[in-house]
């Protein structure tokens, strides 16, 4: 993935929240690894960005 795209993806992800139902809504932050990674991936998919397997640890240098 390109670094610029990654930064945009992280920036967008950090504005998002995840609704787990039953009123359980989790705001995405730097400290919610699963939600952050899932939203970054969602950004890549929505914007047709190519990417390989990655993890929260790969995002840490950009947070």
């Amino acid at each position, binding site marked *: 993935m390109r670094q610029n795209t990654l930064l945009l993806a992280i920036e967008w992800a950090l504005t998002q929240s995840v609704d787990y139902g039953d009123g359980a809504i989790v705001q995405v932050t730097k400290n919610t690894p699963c939600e952050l*990674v*899932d939203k*970054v991936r969602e950004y890549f998919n929505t914007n047709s960005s190519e*990417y*390989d*397997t990655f993890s929260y640890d790969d995002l840490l240098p950009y947070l």
Partner: protein
Amino acid sequence: MGVVNAKIIGSLPNRSVVEIIAHNALAITDSDYHASQLINLTPYKKFTIIGYSSLNQPVKVLFSLGNTFVNSKFWNGTSWVSSVSSPAIIDGTGDRFLITSQMSYLNNIGLNNIIIQVGCSTAPTSGSVTIKILGVPN
């Protein structure tokens, strides 16, 4: 060999629990197995493996005894079974899976180190998987 992402998450008098993250929200995009780093278990007298996933494909979780290039096997009471042929499979509901409750042969034994591998038969297109080990120090 080092402890991976280990941190103390709770403590009681004379007792604490250490969390080791084997896979930290791993967004799998292929159908390969992905191995954790070698996790040192010597500081712990007991450990529990917990996993949860939001992947849109089931994910297989298996252990390797310190080497991913050869099979790791366990005795099922009748024959030797490769961990590859008998993985724990967790779905993408986000539910917390107590993986060692399926791999009961890992309970109450001493291990010096372990590698946790995760993989999907079909490449997922969304979500991630997290695998943690909770260890009770010696």
